[in-house]
Every structure is written in C-alpha cells, then in structure tokens.
C-alpha cells in the first residue's frame, strides 16, 4: 500500500519533469502553419523549423563561439587554480591563509553586482565582442570555486609524499609537477564539468560582453532570435532544442560525472 503510493508519486514527478520536453518537441516538429494545441503531437515530423532556426539564429557560428570560449576558460582555470591551490594547501602560513580567505570570499560575489564597472573595464581594455573580453572575466569568476575544490583535495593527500620526494632531491616545483599533479585527476574531472557547464550555459556575461552577432554564444543568439521572431514560436522551439542538445546528450552518457561535478561544486561552497 505504502509502496504503491510511492510509485504513484514517482510517476507524477516524472510526468511533471518530462511534460516541458514533450511540449518542446511538439512545437519544434510542427510547421508554423499548424495551429493545433501544443499538447497535440505533430502529424508528421517537419524539419523546416530546425533549418530556419539554425540559419536565422546563426547557430553554427554560436556553437563554434561556445566551444572556443568554454574550452579556453576551462583550460586556463584548471592550470591556474591547480597551481594556486598547491601552496595554499601545503604551506598554511599567515600570508597564505589571508590569500586563501580572499579567494573564498570571491565565491560569494555575484558577478552581476559589479557588472557596470566590469563592463567599463572590458570596454576600455580588450573591447566588447572579443574572445578575450569574455574569456578573462569568466576565468576570474570561475577560479575561486576551482581553487577551493583543489585546495580541499590536495589537503587530503598525504604530506609524506612531498617529504619523500624532497629527501630524494626534488625541487618544490617538481614535487607539484611530478607527484601531486598526476593525483588530481578525479577532482579535475569535477572542476571541468562544473566550470564547463557554467560557462557553456552562461547568459549574464555573454549578453553584456558579446554584442556583435558574429560573436554571439548559443544563449545570446537564441535570445536575440526569440525577440526577433517571437511570432514564429516553432522556430524558437527548434532553436531551443538544438541549443540544449549537446549538454543533455553528454549528461545522458556521463550522468554520474555530471551529478558529482555539479553537486560537489555546490556542496563545498
């Protein structure tokens, strides 16, 4: 009896979560001329919306931009944060503790609150609508959490590793490079996913810093597309479906990594 009730609840939850996707698919596969309710499945699978969305929202360009930006941010964040975490985890001097506290306090700064001066800074230096102009602020705001996760992980590694290597004549830098770095793989996977998903899905920074159509990311491209073609709702639906496809597909295949990556970033914050 109790079990039956639980299964019914599970079923209802699943329905509530899948209905939006059901509606999205219906709208995306119907021609614009089909004015039947969104609840009614399409009579035939019409693909014209996808070509229209792909061309008008300039999605091919947007995908390339997304890949370039996400890749660069993830790569630089991993390098800088793993390096920064090593001294912060191993040598807890007064100075390093202050530096660590500064890093952590950056986690709570919502980027939006300083967007006006940040925007001014980008305009004055790299300029808006450049790769550098979006990648650098992203890096700055993704670093704190990455440093936090790396520092926690390195602290949990045995110090005897370092000492043994030191006695063998390793320099401090080569200890990091030869001994610690290879051990960081699991936490690196977490950080890659955490930073990657955040940057890939970002809208706040992108809408401020990328104003030239050729520089739009998927989210900005879609929002411009939406305001331009808000009557062609089927095109918008097709665009949304294309935009969310890469990450949802990855998620389906690498579920446990994604859950771990995004939840670990959250828990430890």
């Amino acid at each position: 009896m109790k079990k039956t009730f639980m299964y019914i609840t599970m079923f209802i939850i699943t329905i509530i979560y899948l209905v939006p996707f059901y509606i999205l698919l219906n709208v995306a596969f119907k021609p614009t001329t089909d004015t039947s309710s969104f609840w009614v499945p399409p009579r035939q699978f019409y693909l014209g919306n996808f070509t229209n969305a792909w061309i008008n929202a300039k999605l091919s360009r947007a995908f390339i931009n997304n890949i370039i930006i996400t890749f660069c941010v993830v790569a630089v964040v991993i390098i800088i944060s793993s390096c920064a975490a090593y001294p912060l985890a191993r040598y807890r001097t007064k100075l390093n503790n202050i530096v660590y506290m500064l890093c952590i306090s950056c986690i709570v700064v919502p980027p939006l609150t300083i967007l006006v001066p940040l925007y001014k800074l980008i305009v004055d230096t790299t300029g808006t609508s450049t790769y550098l102009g979006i990648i650098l602020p992203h890096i700055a705001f993704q670093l704190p959490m990455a440093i936090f996760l790396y520092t926690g992980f390195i602290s949990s590694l045995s110090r005897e590793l370092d000492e043994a290597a030191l006695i063998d004549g390793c320099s401090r830098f080569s200890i990091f490079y030869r001994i610690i770095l290879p051990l960081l793989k699991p936490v690196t996977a977490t950080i890659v996913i955490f930073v990657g998903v955040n940057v890939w899905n970002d809208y706040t920074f992108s809408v401020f810093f990328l104003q030239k159509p050729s520089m739009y990311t998927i989210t900005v491209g879609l929002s411009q597309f939406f305001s331009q073609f808000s009557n062609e709702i089927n095109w918008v639906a097709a665009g949304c479906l294309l935009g969310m496809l890469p990450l949802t597909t990855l998620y389906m295949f690498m579920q446990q990594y994604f859950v771990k990556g995004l939840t670990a970033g959250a828990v430890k914050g």
Partner: protein
Amino acid sequence: MNNAFAKKLKSPSVLNIMYIPALIFFVVFIFYPFVKGVRISFLEWNGYSQNSRWVGLDNYKRMFADPDFYTTVKNTFIYGVGSTLFQNVIGLAFALLLDQKLKGKVFVRTVVYLPVMISSIIMGYIWYFFFKYDGGAVNDLIRFISADTEPIDWLASSDRSVWIITFVNTLQYLGIAMMIYIAGLQGISKDYYEAAYIDGAKGFSVFKNVTLPLLMPSITVNIILNIIGGLKLFDVIMAMTSGGPGYSSSSISTMMYQIYFVRMDAGYAAAMGNFMFMMITVISMFLLLYLRKKEVEL
C-alpha cells in the same frame, strides 16, 4: 645546479609565486571593479562618454525614493525566499522518497536532475510556451477542462508572473538540492535509526529527532546556495518577461540591466549593484552564522 639556487627551490615560500596569476585575476576583474563601482555610484554618467559629474549620494537618494526600486526589491525577495523555501521543502521530500528501496528511482533522479544541464534562458523559453497568452499550453488545458473559460494572461500582472518565475526557477534547480539531501541521507549511520527504534520512536518523530538534526549540514548548504541563486536571478526573468510589464516582475538585477543599457544611467545602475552586493552579503552571512549555530545546538 648552483647550490644557493637549489636551496631556494626547496624553501616553501618560493611556491607562493604559484598563486600570483590567480591573484592578478582577482585584483583586475573582481577587486578593482568593485572599488571602481563604488566610485561610479557617486557619479552622474551615461556609461560611455568621457564626461561625468560628481553627485555624491544623489544616486542612492534617488534609489530609495524610487517606487520601482521597492517593487524590484520586493520581487527579489520573493525570488530569493520563495525559491529557497520550495527547493528545500520539495527537494527534501523528493530525496526522502528517492532514497527508499524503489525500482526506477535512479531514473527519476536522472529526470529531476536533467534541467540543471539546460541553460536557464532556454528553460525560461520552454516555460513561456506554457504560460503564453495566445495558444499557451496551460490556457489550452484550461479550455479543454471547461470550454467557456476565458484564457488567462499569466505573465501580464506581477501577482502571477513573479510566482511563475519562482516556480520555473525552483523546478529547474530542485535537482541539486535533492542530490545534496540524498547524499546527506546516505551519510547518516543506520545505528541512529536502530537506536531510535529501540527507544520506541516511530515515523515522524524519527524524522524530526534523528534525520533532520543529522541533515543540518546539508540544509545549511542548500539554503545558502538557493538564497544566493534566487536573489541574483536574472536569466529566467529575462526569458519570460524581461522584467515587465514596466518593472512589475523585475528583480534588482534585471532593473540594473535596463537602467544601464536602456536608460543609460550608469551611476544609478552602479548604486543598485552595490546595494545588491550588500544585501546578498549581509543576508547570506547572517543566515550562515544562524544555521551554523543551529547545527551545533541540534
């Protein structure tokens, strides 16, 4: 290798240069803009010209005299507190359910977590298909149930739109809260439950006296996370209403965006940014201290 140099490479302090790149990023892109933002908030400036005028606290005075500002602060609180409440209550309920021995629970978890992968701007558009006035899925459903009901313009008045946006945000990020609670539940040793049963505790009293206190660290994390997320909500609002009509469903963040890019009032926008920063910092610090104290008490 030169001996002195080799020695230097072995002293711990030389490693400190490894965090200098990170510090440079923080100083240039976080600390410097923050200080600069305080300065801009004392200026009358359109955001791009070379001319600006020092007006002291005028922007802040304007802000506190602006009725639109109070609307957005109220909305921001609804987004923040509403999302936090719903995500935690429903997230915990889901976690309790999906932590049982049930077939297919992993599948349900996967489905609930799925929206976390999707950009919230896209999520906002998907829900727009539901709450659209003309041909929206919800209005169709209402008409299907009773044919002569007038369609409702869900997003036209703030009474509804603010709560709809809160609902969309809750539904999207519920998965994170749920997963954190599931992890928390699995971390509770079975011994506690056995001890409680021996003492004759049952059902709800076990939940209240054993589960909840031991889950307190997860509750703290979730509340802090959700309150910050809700107070700075931006994407979903932009997707569903752009803060409108007027500022009726605006949060501080979307109003700031409008003031900066549409009204070209950079000083005022910076003042709002500083207010928002103070607000989020004070609320999250206060909550953190309060919840940590609770954790010790329980």
